């Protein structure tokens, strides 16, 4: 049995965990649910020995684990999968997996790769092309690799932090089956999630955290979604209040026949799409099908091999991109909040006079954004690293809106956000569209897109296709996302 007793953890002034007790048994899937910042990930990291608690112990079968030793935790059979994959960016995936328990701990890449392939096939995962480095892989692929790495230790306890956010509908069912299979083998499975349906579908027991405290413990059959949601957030999330405005005919963004190759693969294949002012269009697809590259083309980081990108005024300042991987690209974590705000070029121009940065104005601007978007932070001089995931995301959205764009391209921005947080972001985007802006919402979460977007496109293997209303069923869209376009 895995147990945590009386765990307390403080980060600076924030009490992240407050005397938390937690228990999970072999042969059960235990869902740990809660809002962003509730302390789920912190609890996982403490059990996995990555963080040292300020008080309390983690125990496995009654024996206390050495606090703050990841090696000791792994040695006792506790493996954890991170929400933001912790992989070595510049190494190949085989080398990364070699850090796992494959090939009996020998550093033989061929043996590692073949064992990984066997394991992956058993789980229905596809592995990346041989010898490709992590930095060129999508988030979904990274998460899969990290699950594989964790399983390679044949752990008795497997903890997974929001693993399903990056999986497509077809992968999700297979993944939940995988969890059930691991449970049947008598392991302890701890699933951290904010998706209530998922927790109810797969978990045996559920623990709810709110603000660093356990607020509910229950069997999955003795509860329901609305009860859990109330426990998690207190109130139910508000629905969108702005009806999508009738969309005009002004084209805000036009992409024509954009093709891009990377490492000899065609990652974008004759992509064409048009966005009208006032609309939120969704682009659905499983991560790794060209979304990241499309975003980079739109951000001006990559130049397409052929085709063109056009806005109304052909001005990059009119288009703002909120990139997917917020820790690596969207925010610079070891800079202050106001510095992160003025990373955006239009905002920097507002706070710069003849080359001199007006710090007071930049701080004011940042403080305004913190207030307006209710970002919980001590102030503009805080380091971005000190913010919780949800607040980082709010900051990225706030910055994008503040730069006064006509078009916002947002990539997986609600990943890892709780229901209230996601609703808030969607509301913000809806307000922006209602005021005449255009939004391209790229996401692997189909439910999110169906709820939010007036128009839906699908991307698969670098090709983009429009869908019509009678294709808006989960099955049909699942087919399209999987590339069955006929």
């Amino acid at each position, binding site marked *: 049995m895995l147990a945590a007793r009386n765990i307390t953890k403080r980060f600076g002034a924030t009490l992240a965990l407050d005397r938390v007790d937690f228990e999970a048994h072999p042969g059960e899937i235990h869902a740990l649910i809660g809002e962003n910042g509730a302390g789920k990930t912190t609890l996982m990291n403490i059990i996995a020995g990555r963080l040292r608690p300020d008080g309390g112990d983690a125990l496995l079968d009654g024996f206390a684990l050495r606090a703050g030793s990841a090696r000791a935790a792994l040695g006792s059979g506790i493996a954890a999968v991170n929400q933001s994959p912790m992989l070595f960016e510049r190494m190949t995936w085989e080398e990364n997996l070699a850090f796992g328990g494959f090939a009996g701990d020998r550093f033989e890449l061929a043996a590692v790769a073949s064992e990984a392939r066997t394991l992956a096939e058993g789980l229905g995962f596809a592995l990346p092309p041989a010898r490709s480095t992590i930095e060129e892989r999508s988030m979904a692929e990274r998460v899969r690799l990290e699950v594989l790495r964790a399983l390679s230790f044949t752990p008795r306890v497997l903890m997974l932090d929001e693993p399903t956010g990056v999986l497509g509908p077809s992968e999700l069912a297979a993944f939940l089956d995988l969890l059930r299979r691991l449970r049947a083998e008598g392991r302890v499975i701890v699933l951290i999630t904010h998706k209530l349906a998922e927790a109810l579908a797969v978990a045996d027991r559920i623990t709810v955290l709110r603000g660093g405290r356990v607020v509910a413990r229950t069997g999955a059959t003795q509860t329901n979604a609305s009860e859990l949601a109330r426990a998690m957030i207190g109130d139910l999330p508000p629905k969108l209040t702005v009806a999508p405005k009738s969309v005009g005919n002004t084209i805000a963004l036009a992409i024509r026949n954009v093709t891009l190759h990377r490492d000899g693969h065609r990652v974008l294949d004759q992509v064409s799409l048009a966005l009208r002012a006032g609309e939120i269009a969704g682009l659905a697809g499983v991560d790794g099908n060209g979304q990241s590259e499309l975003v980079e083309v739109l951000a001006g*980081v990559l130049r397409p091999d052929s085709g063109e990108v056009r806005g109304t005024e052909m001005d*990059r300042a009119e288009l703002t991109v909120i990139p997917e991987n917020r820790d*690596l*690209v969207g*925010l*610079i974590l*070891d*800079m202050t909040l106001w510095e992160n705000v003025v990373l955006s070029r239009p905002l920097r121009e507002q706070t*710069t006079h003849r080359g001199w940065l007006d710090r007071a104005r930049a701080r004011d601007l940042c403080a305004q954004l913190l207030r307006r978007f209710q970002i919980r932070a001590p102030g503009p001089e805080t380091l971005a690293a000190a913010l919780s995931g949800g607040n980082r995301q709010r900051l990225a959205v706030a910055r994008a809106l503040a730069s006064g764009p006509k078009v916002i391209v947002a990539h997986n921005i609600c990943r890892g956000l709780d229901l209230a947080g996601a609703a808030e972001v969607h509301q913000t985007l809806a307000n922006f569209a209602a005021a005449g802006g255009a939004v391209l919402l790229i996401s692997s979460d189909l439910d999110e897109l169906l709820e939010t977007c007036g128009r839906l496109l699908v991307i698969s293997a670098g090709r983009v296709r429009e869908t019509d209303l009678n294709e808006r069923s989960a099955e049909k869209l699942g087919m399209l996302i999987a590339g069955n376009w006929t």
Partner: protein
Amino acid sequence: MILSSLARAVAAILLAGVILAGVLLALGASPAGVFMALAQGAFGNWYALTDTVVRSTPLIFTGLAISISFSGALWNIGADGQLVVGALAAGAIGPQLEACPKPLAIAIILIAGALGGAAWGGTCGWLRAHRDTNEVISTIMMNFVAAQLLSWSVHGPLIEASRAYPSSTPIAESAHMYVFFPPSRVNLGIVIAIVLAIACWLLLFKTDVGFQLRAMGRNRRAATFFGIPIARLTVTILALSGALAGIGGAVQVSAITHRLYEKMSPGWGFEAIAVALIARLNPLGIVASALLFGALDNGSQAMQRAQGVSAELVQVIQALVIMILLAFDTPAVAQLWSALGGSKVAAPSAISEIPNA
């Protein structure tokens, strides 16, 4: 922020002193005597004091060169070569300035030094920006090219009239730097160095370009996403970094040597990395840490004479200071500092980022 990093540096120096005292005791030398002799040699009298300033001056210039390039995660290990080329340019043009009024002659010689260093650093910047050549390697290699170029110049085209010694024709009298309080060697160079330190500090922390540079240094990929012109910034900053080191070389020629010799730098460009790291890349801190290093260098001679301890002991002190700073530069210690009333936020240090080159 500045205060807490200053306190940290002072604490590291004190701790290094304690460790060293232990070593000296074990060797049977008197720690008090050694430290007194060191201090005496560095600050003991007017002559010692002024010479400490003179010895620190080139370290400020090269330290600033390191500061602005490292702030952008551009690992310029070639400040030594850039200083040498700056000196070479100054020494080559110096003899031609006979007819110039003094202020103009000095300006020309400094500009020549800046351009020489900028060419050396800028080349590595261009290679990094447009040919993806690792600047660590290219700047190190360019040090050797600079050293050989200087050696060839003083044996060949620039050799003095009698052709007897490998040194160049002396520069014109009008190009000699203003010297304060003769016969001391304190000169306008230290003022220029301090002015440039302030300018670098303003550039890094008060301007848009400096912000872009720091953003690039922290996260190059994110900087790309936000439209920061990485390639242009790389070339400009490495050229500017080279120019700072080059001015250091020109000041040395104009104020101290008045001509070129085969060896112009005892390794100031490398010592500068230590100087800059102790100052946590802060240009104003570099003035202080360069003075410390200059004082240690200067005091070491007197220490050797008075106590019979090898002058190399000073390098041990320098190494100890750096290692202590690095060893205690961890988040836990940063928290301790803030708990003791230092800075509110534990900023990750520039030093700990360096391995990510």
